[in-house]
């Protein structure tokens, strides 16, 4: 009975939400002239970046990205704080049975490929779909594969926290360097190069690589904490 009340409430909410969106009228004349034209024009003319979404996320709305990364960091920290237990030797976890030899060697073969894919996604963030968040998540998934296959595969929390902290610090420093060069926060100050090259877009690929490292370290630490929690 409770379930149906929940479903009916959700359906009502969804109906009114849908009606609101319908009345908002996406694609109306209201949206015809807006900030999107400036983004589309400046992405090509000033930043020489092929992927407009990347330029919006990292450059024009870079401050929001900093907030998102901070939210993720806080979530990981809070989870670590809740699940923290004093253990004598970190690295033990309860498994019903260890993974077989096929799974172990297969994971060992697939692990570099998964890491390579993740790194490719965040290094080519300004050229193709994807970026720091996506690539970092893929890298974390690769570490998850190894953690599932080898029950005593160890990830050093110290190294993870150093990577995370340095990525965050350099993100803010690159943002502040925009001030130093007489602009705004996260404004581009490096040569932009030619469009569709790997070394182009000025500061954007560097920021995305830093975001990728940060997200990968955070999510790997999160998975490691959750996986080693014993009930």
């Amino acid at each position, binding site marked *: 009975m409770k379930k149906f009340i929940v479903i009916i409430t959700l359906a009502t909410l969804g109906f009114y939400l849908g009606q609101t969106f319908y009345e908002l009228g996406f694609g109306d004349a209201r949206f015809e002239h807006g900030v999107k034209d400036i983004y589309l024009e400046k992405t090509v003319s000033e930043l020489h970046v092929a992927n407009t979404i990347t330029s919006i996320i990292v450059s024009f709305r870079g401050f929001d990205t900093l907030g998102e990364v901070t939210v993720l960091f806080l979530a990981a920290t809070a989870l670590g704080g809740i699940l923290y237990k004093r253990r004598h030797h970190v690295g033990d976890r309860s498994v*019903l*049975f260890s*993974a*077989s030899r*096929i*799974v172990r060697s*297969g*994971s060992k*073969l*697939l692990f570099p*490929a998964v890491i390579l894919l993740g790194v490719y996604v965040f290094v080519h963030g300004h050229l193709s779909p994807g970026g720091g968040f996506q690539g970092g998540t893929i890298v974390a998934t690769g570490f998850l594969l190894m953690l599932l296959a080898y029950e005593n595969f160890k990830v050093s929390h110290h190294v993870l926290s150093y990577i995370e902290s340095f990525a965050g610090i350099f993100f803010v420093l690159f943002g502040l360097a925009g001030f130093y060069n007489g602009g705004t926060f996260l404004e581009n100050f490096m040569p932009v190069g030619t469009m569709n090259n790997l070394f182009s877009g000025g500061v954007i690929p560097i920021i995305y690589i830093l975001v990728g490292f940060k997200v990968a370290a955070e999510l790997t630490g999160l998975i490691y904490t959750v996986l080693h929690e014993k009930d």
Partner: protein
Amino acid sequence: MSLLFEIIGGALILIGSIFLLLGGLGILRMPDVYNRLQAGTKATTLGGMSLILGVGFLKVEDDWTWMVKALIIVIFIAFSNPISSHALARAMYKRKRYPLIKNDDGNMDAYKEVSENIKKEDKK
């Protein structure tokens, strides 16, 4: 030449779709976990491989890199799909869900010899 590539690609995509359909049917119709894994994994491995190769053949005239990408994906499927199904089957076996066979009465039953063997292994 382009017509030949188109025919090969279309045929491969057709074969792939048929195998994926059969795999889905197998997952619905088979009686227990092992048979379902058999149907699902074998059919989806071959189906997915030939589907992606077919896409590579269709695009190879415009851009040969499509074929290389398709081959890489095929290799990835050939690695990951059997490993994952092996892990699933092994987990079920270790959790003591045994395969079903028809016994003398005609009913589906857990495979007796397998379960006896496992009991012997447990005693050791």
